[in-house]
């Protein structure tokens, strides 16, 4: 009971700064996700249009390399180029998001029955119409699940961004570790989990509602 009362007091005293950490966290996550989507979806589409396997595997390998760089090293490597703060953090998260987003979008478009694409072409859709009206809608479940998974990853990775001065919930956690305040650690962790779960649920709902409108897929 004592603990709970203390915790409420902690929130009462700290909520403006806690909210600020959370908002920073959300902004960084959202920003990297949006940039990731804007870059990877056209890139993945381009890759599905490419005949040269060499180029495809090159792009995927590069994305894969980014993925395997440890978060802390990635953030550190950004500093000489982009300085400290949000810029390098968002850039690092963006690089991390490349592979899952790219892979899902690419797989989504590849998964479409070639007959359907052939039919679209044969009926006189031009390449762009086929993409917008047929291929993207059909690849959407894959793309969405890629976005969903990536967003949860990013929210978790962004906690590391605090070490390079970008703030976010990681700041709360590191502060908590630094001067032994369990409330801070707990709150930072809890909020990061809540953000991740809420984002996941949000996307899940969105997917569900999409599926309802189009009922069954292939």
């Amino acid at each position, binding site marked *: 009971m004592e603990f709970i009362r203390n915790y409420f007091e902690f929130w009462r005293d700290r909520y403006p700064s806690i909210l600020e950490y959370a908002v920073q966290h959300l902004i960084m996550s959202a920003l990297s996700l949006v940039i990731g989507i804007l870059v990877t979806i056209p890139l993945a589409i381009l890759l599905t249009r490419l005949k040269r396997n060499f180029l495809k595997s090159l792009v995927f390998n590069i994305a894969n390399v980014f993925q395997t760089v440890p978060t802390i090293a990635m953030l550190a490597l950004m500093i000489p180029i982009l300085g400290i703060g949000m810029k390098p953090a968002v850039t690092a998260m963006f690089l991390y998001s490349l592979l899952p987003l790219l892979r899902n979008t690419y797989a989504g478009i590849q998964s479409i*029955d070639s007959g359907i694409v052939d039919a679209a072409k*044969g*009926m006189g*859709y031009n390449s762009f119409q086929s993409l917008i009206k047929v291929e993207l*809608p059909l690849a959407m479940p894959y793309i969405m699940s890629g976005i969903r998974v990536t967003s949860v990853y990013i929210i978790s990775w962004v906690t590391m961004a605090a070490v390079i001065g970008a703030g976010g919930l990681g700041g709360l956690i590191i502060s908590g570790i630094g001067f032994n305040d369990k409330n801070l650690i707990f709150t930072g962790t809890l909020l990061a989990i809540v953000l991740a779960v809420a984002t996941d649920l949000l996307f899940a709902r969105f997917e569900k509602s999409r599926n309802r409108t189009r009922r069954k897929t292939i």
Partner: protein
Amino acid sequence: MIELRKVNKVYEDGTHVLKDIDLLFESGKINVLIGPSGCGKTTTMRLLNRLTEHTGGEIFIDEKNIADFNPIELRRHMGYVIQSIGLFPHMTIYDNVATVPRLLKWDKSKIDKRVNELLELVNLNPEQYKKRYPSELSGGQQQRIGVARALAAEPATILMDEPFSALDPISRDQLQNELVRLQEDIQKTIIFVTHDMDEALKIADQIILMKDGRVVQKGTPREILTNPANDFVREFIGEERLKTAEPLPSLSNFIDPTIQAIHLSESKESVIKKLMEQQCFTYPLVDETNQFLGQLSLQKIMNESSVHLEDFVDPSVQALTTDQDIEDVLEYLEKHKHHSLPVVDNENMFVGMIDMKELFRSVRSVYGKRGGN
């Protein structure tokens, strides 16, 4: 009419998949491209709407070179049905069928009307099916929608790439029948790719048999069956079908040469007597050089007062010639219901008579062996 002149297709890697293809697809006919896989049949079809571009020769649609068309426009004016059906799973039946009209920017009411019309044409109740999704339909129903979609913008030509091959045998058979029936109404130029000889024989006006990028033989189903160009064709058709397609015995087998024609010089009385004796109502009449003049009618002899035998000829009866196709004869007989008919040779010389009962019995026995057709 679609014409291919010395058409070649060589891929970038050097594979020469079509070699000097010369073909003519007549308007309003079902043309079936058939052959083993890799023979180039699908490629040939895809050249027509330029999903694949040919690398040599020329292709004309109604005398216009297709190279001069915008490929996208060309495709919008050509129906296209494919094996995997290719319905868009995320669109309703209505949206699927309306695809090309929408691309052509028809107005809404016209599209509505056309979709209803088409669904009825392929025997699906518009109100019931319009709002459904492809996955909610059976394979056969889906392929009907595929056909309806191809017909939507009233194209003169429809390309069908193994459209029924993924269906169960019963649906396939049903759809083949429906296609033939539909074709009587719509009279489209259909280019139909298949690897199924039974299907080809059933629906084709013209069969084009291909192998290794060349046309091996083309012709009507009957021509191909009765006169396979070489061993490959024979093998491809299969012994079973060839056996069943053995030519019917020629007409000459059924001619009764014992019947003597009446000479122009004979008297009216002797003719009457002869007919009465033989219980015949009609009898062939020839001149002194055995030239066939016509069929004497007993009725006319009795009723008319003339003494010239020529005057008693029944003009509605025509003689058969010895080289006539037996199927045509049967067709003619079915129409005119004669008991017997005179047969002449190419110089109009009387050869003998054919007894209809005898002929039918013989033909039936041949067809009976085929187990019905």
